[in-house]
């Protein structure tokens, strides 16, 4: 068995700010195999983007402190030289950012920017690079690539801009594409198109994808595996189908319940997660989700849960929750049956004691 394409092990990223040290990523581990898609889900500020930037080595340009290991095809990227990393960036690992308008250079033509990405890694003539840019633009479904290449980013529509951004990421046929909220700034219909496009490209180019989003609905369509991040940590990780059908963490429940289901005949049973994401400068003691968790007990303020395999659900499903597994399952059943937090809690408590 060969090593996984990307292996992130106990990654820590700390960003010094004026108010204090932000623990943006707090011991995150995951692996991505060739051609697979990992979805990383969480609220803004959960450390999703920062962990991805650390993988790309982009955190080197800030004063971030990083620990742990990031291995790409077995090579440790955190100890790699700047130049080694640079050769990898945009060539073997590419990144697509959210908000293509601010992420594309406003003063350069789209075609030149894509061609520039080619020429960063291949010594070929400008003309060849531009041909390559036209090819990739056609591949991502930009009609009339020649015209779009001559356009400046602000002259394209949001959907076309994001396609151009994706084209730029894929132009060197990377083995891994990190897509950071690729659909966040787009209309819903365009979002669906972009997701379909990513799906198709993933199949055609057999690129592995790390899809970062705050929208469980987005990863549900695409990911093979889903990791849920909260306050700089992964709180639950499982194959996509398992996570969506049998989530174990109350935070995942909250995320699932805040997705609208058009099928539910007009009734609005969207349940937002109460409270706000915690400060990463002074993270809460114990389980970092306890201040917002409707099921938190007294001990959860003190004990810090670890990401552990869920009993009798295979090693692939891991969760960091202090609630006993039977209690969690009763709660999720109750919630799915339409109960609210309080009902679920009392029910679980009663059954637990009775």
């Amino acid at each position, binding site marked *: 068995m060969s090593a996984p394409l990307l292996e992130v092990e106990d990654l820590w990223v700390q960003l010094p700010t004026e108010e204090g040290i932000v623990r943006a990523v707090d011991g995150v581990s995951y692996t991505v195999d060739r051609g697979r898609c990992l979805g990383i889900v969480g609220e803004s500020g959960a450390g999703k983007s920062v962990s991805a*930037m650390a993988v*790309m080595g*982009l955190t080197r*340009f800030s004063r971030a402190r990083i620990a742990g290991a990031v291995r790409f095809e077995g090579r440790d990227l955190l100890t790699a030289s*700047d130049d080694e990393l*640079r*050769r*990898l*960036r*945009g*060539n073997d690992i*590419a*990144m697509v*950012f959210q*908000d293509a308008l*601010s*992420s*594309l*250079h*406003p*003063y*350069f033509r789209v075609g030149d920017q894509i061609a*520039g*990405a080619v020429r*960063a*890694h291949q010594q070929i003539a400008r003309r060849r690079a531009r041909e390559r840019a036209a090819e990739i633009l056609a591949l991502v479904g930009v009609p009339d690539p020649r015209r779009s290449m001559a356009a*400046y980013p*602000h*002259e394209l529509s949001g959907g076309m801009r994001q396609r151009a*951004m994706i084209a*730029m990421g894929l132009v060197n046929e990377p083995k891994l594409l990190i897509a950071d909220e690729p659909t966040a700034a787009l209309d819903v219909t365009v979002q669906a198109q972009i997701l379909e496009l990513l799906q198709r490209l993933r199949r055609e180019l057999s690129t592995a994808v790390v899809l970062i989003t705050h929208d469980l609905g987005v990863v549900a369509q695409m990911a093979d595996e889903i990791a849920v991040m909260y306050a700089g940590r992964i709180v639950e990780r499982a194959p996509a189908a398992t996570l969506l059908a049998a989530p174990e963490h109350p935070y995942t429940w909250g995320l699932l319940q805040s997705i609208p289901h058009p099928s539910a005949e007009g009734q609005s049973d969207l349940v937002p997660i109460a409270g706000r994401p915690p400060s990463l400068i002074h993270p809460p003691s114990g389980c970092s989700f306890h201040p917002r968790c409707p099921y938190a007990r007294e001990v959860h303020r003190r004990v810090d849960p670890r990401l552990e395999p869920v009993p009798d659900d295979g090693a692939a499903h891991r969760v960091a929750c202090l609630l006993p597994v039977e209690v969690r399952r009763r709660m999720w059943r109750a919630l799915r049956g339409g109960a609210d937090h309080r009902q679920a809690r009392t029910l679980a408590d009663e059954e637990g004691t009775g």
Partner: protein
Amino acid sequence: MQYLSYMTDVFLRLDFGFSFQSNADVLGLILARLPATVQLALGAVVLWLAAGIGLGVVSAVRRRTLVDRVSMGVALVGISAPVYWLGLVAIYLFSEDIGLIPLLPGIGGYVPPTEDLSAWLGSMILPWCVLAASLAAIYSRVLRASLLDVMSEDYIRTARAQGLRERRVVLRHGLRGALTPVVTLAGLDLGVLLGGAILTESVFNLPGVGRLAYDAIVRGDLPVIQGTVLFGAFFIIVMAIIVDVLYAYLDPRVRHA
């Protein structure tokens, strides 16, 4: 009524009146002085942009290091030092006759480039440097701030994510974004200087428009004062228009607005 007739003369007949002093045609006086002023301004603009941008980039890239601190410190001195003082010090140090390090002949004796190119160069180098010094200092600070701003933009992150060399990220993607305010400023400053750099021209005894204005003020030669002021205003307006057009060229987003 007098004003009206002056203005119609100026705008319709390009007639700026006659000097009280020499009874010469004001327009002719100004045009005769213009070459030296234009030479001074254009030479200086090249110098101060080169120095200002170079220093600005270096201190932005090496932010918070010794290089940054020293160059910004020098820039502060440059901004604070008045041109007449800097000019006199420069003359004291470098001029042929009284200088401590007599390197440059011909200071204070302007020779048109058509007559003797090397003598002209010798007479212009110090004025260029002195005039450029304070402006270069301002520009390096402006560019440093602007480049630091741009380097935290999303599109710089994208450029890095493409795997471009850092030199290219800074010099192409970064500088291209940071240059706009500098160009705007440079255009306007150039406009002001084309109207005559009174101090520099006086210190180095250059026969430019600024010197003409100064002499006219001293002698109370009103038509010449009026003429030079109008000329100055004219250049400022022209440069402002050029800058606006350049803006559309520099920032494609402006073109369609």
